[in-house]
């Protein structure tokens, strides 16, 4: 690696093959008899946060690490703040601080799920997997279903404005600090959100209906498309309710039996580890008791709805029951059901926002607590894309000495690779990568809402590069879509 480093200065030799950063790069590997053996989704980004955070003062961390991701920075902001709560010995936040943070988090989940559904996923659902790529993006939706496109834009705006009101900025705000928050929500700020709430609730119900109706109407097709059994991991509240902000970690197996439950975040290293593979900068997390082969798991909306016992808001709970009835209350493994589950959470977030806005604690003035200083803190949060882990050690000079981050998309790494392998096995015929294969790879990856797709996709389709490799790793065919 070191030689690579040194040769990699600014004078790099540019390969004649064009590539785009942010491309979902996929290689499909064939065995001797020409069968698909494995497909790999390569994550080509490396930034080194774990190392360069070392030496920074701990109070900087919530604003620093959120720069990992501008798509859901609130997740990193809050998860780091929660870990720093442990460091400053804040065992329990004030009601105002906890609720302001929750409002920020539900605002973010609302905008992120709306963005994904309306801007990215709805074209697949509205136009079909194989439709013209020229219309499969938000502007295509705008042309054919202008009302839906406007709804998507306005729902995202609503969530972004909640983030701004609680953190100061729409992207990379500063609201959460170790031990609490730095502002409350004024009556004036609150009233703006209450005014539009009814509309948001109505649109959330409508979006849920689109996702539900689509899945139910096409149940056979979506069940056939890339369904595979897996373990699921999610935070749950002490009483088993869905909780996106806090709780203990639960893992269930494919039949819904608990592998572990109410795991305290500080103990995560006893339960979870991450395997390194040479061909991707993204690691492969697994449940330690099951090992690398059997221990991989999925996270995100589908896993959360599967893992929780109930939802504590009425409309979303109703929707959850309907969702679970499809698989007779057993875990749902249909990859495309992520979209439906995501819309249940969209509605849940909207209901939670209402609950919080009506709570006078948001106008409280007691914002920060502190206790006995600790050396180590771990926090887990349910980010829009799944369980997010932050782990820090801080020395007596208040400097960070160790940082470990397991981000949500990482936990879905194995599942996305399996999804792509499944699609390749099913749709690859001969030795050529067809447009149809490309479409299906794209749809399979997008169900997981990985950051790379979300981001590169906001204004167009997912750029993809798919390479077909022979048994000796020789390139047979390559197809790029920008």
């Amino acid at each position, binding site marked *: *690696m070191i030689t690579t*480093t*040194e040769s*990699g*200065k*600014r004078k*790099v*030799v*540019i*390969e004649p093959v*064009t*590539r*785009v*950063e*942010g491309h979902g790069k996929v290689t499909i590997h064939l065995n001797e008899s020409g069968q698909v053996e494995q497909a790999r989704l390569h994550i*080509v*980004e490396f*930034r*080194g946060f*774990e*190392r*360069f955070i*070392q030496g920074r003062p701990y109070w900087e961390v919530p604003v*620093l690490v959120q*720069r*990992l*991701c*501008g*798509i859901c*920075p609130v997740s990193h902001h809050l998860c780091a703040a929660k870990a720093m709560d442990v460091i400053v010995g804040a065992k329990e936040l004030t009601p105002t601080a906890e609720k302001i943070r929750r409002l920020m988090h539900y605002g973010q989940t609302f905008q992120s799920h709306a963005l994904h559904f309306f801007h990215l996923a709805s074209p697949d659902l509205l136009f079909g997997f194989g439709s013209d790529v*020229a219309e499969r*993006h938000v502007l295509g939706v*705008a042309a054919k279903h202008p009302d839906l496109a406007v709804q998507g*834009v*306005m729902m*995202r*705006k609503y969530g972004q404005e909640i983030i701004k009101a609680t953190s100061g900025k*729409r*992207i*990379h705000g500063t609201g959460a600090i170790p031990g609490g928050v730095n502002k409350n929500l004024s009556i004036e700020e609150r009233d703006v959100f209450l005014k539009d709430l009814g509309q948001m609730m109505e649109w959330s119900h409508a979006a849920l209906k689109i996702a539900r109706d689509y899945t139910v109407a096409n149940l056979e097709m979506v069940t056939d498309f890339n369904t595979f059994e897996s373990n699921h991991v999610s935070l749950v509240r002490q009483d088993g309710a869905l909780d996106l902000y806090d709780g203990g970690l639960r893992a269930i197996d494919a039949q819904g039996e608990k592998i572990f439950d109410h795991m305290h975040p500080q103990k995560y*290293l006893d339960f*979870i580890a*991450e*395997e*390194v*593979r*040479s*061909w*991707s900068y993204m*690691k492969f997390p697994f449940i330690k008791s099951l090992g690398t082969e059997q221990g991989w798991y999925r996270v995100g909306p589908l896993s959360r709805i599967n893992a929780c016992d109930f939802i504590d808001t009425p409309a979303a709970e109703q929707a959850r029951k309907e969702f679970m009835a499809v698989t007779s209350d057993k875990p749902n493994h249909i990859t495309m059901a992520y979209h439906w589950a995501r819309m249940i959470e969209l509605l849940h977030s909207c209901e939670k926002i209402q609950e919080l806005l009506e709570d006078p604690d948001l106008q409280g003035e007691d914002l920060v607590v502190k206790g006995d200083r600790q050396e180590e803190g771990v926090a887990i949060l349910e980010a829009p894309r799944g369980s997010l882990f932050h*782990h820090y050690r801080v020395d007596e000079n208040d400097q960070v000495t*160790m940082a*470990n981050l*397991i981000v949500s998309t990482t936990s879905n790494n194995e599942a996305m690779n399996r999804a792509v392998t499944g699609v390749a096995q099913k749709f690859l015929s001969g030795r050529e990568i067809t447009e149809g294969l490309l479409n299906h790879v794209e749809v399979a990856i997008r169900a997981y809402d990985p*950051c790379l797709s*979300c981001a590169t996709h906001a204004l*167009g*389709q997912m750029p993809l590069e798919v390479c077909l490799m022979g048994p000796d790793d020789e390139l047979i065919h390559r197809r*790029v879509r*920008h």
Partner: protein
Amino acid sequence: MSSKPKVATTSLCGCFGCHMSLLDIDERILKLAELVEFNKSPINDIKVLADDVVVGLIEGGCCNEENVHVLRDFRLHCKILISVGECATSGGIPALRNPISLKECLEEAYLNGPSVHNPSGKIPNDPDLPLLLNKVYPCHEVVKIDYHLPGCPPPADTIWQALTALLGNKPMDLPYELIKYD
């Protein structure tokens, strides 16, 4: 359709926050779609990225060979190139790795991290992964950049006003409130 000016965007070593800030123009995104043609193939296929892209928006600095390649292609094909945000302008947060050796950064992530399971002791090195540069470079150290929009990210209004001024052939005259250095 083809008479509309073309706009292309890319994220190099950034976090996509600047792209999200562009989306934060909210309902104006639909208006923007009427004003310009988004070059859907953002970037680097020369045949597709026509020579007449009017504005290229760059998010992020350069941390690997692909970034450099994409950035040079942008320079080649865009009349006006804008560094959008802290990372494109100065390297930003990712450039915090610059005082540290790349080897140390990789070892921390793939060998020493407390949850790492890596019996082979290998750091990812597949040919499918682009070569990392020794440091993270701001865009203007790699190609000529015409404008810099500061901020992490620049506010949506900053991006909107800059873009509409350029497209309307007017001077980019941003008020003080829209110039943020955070």
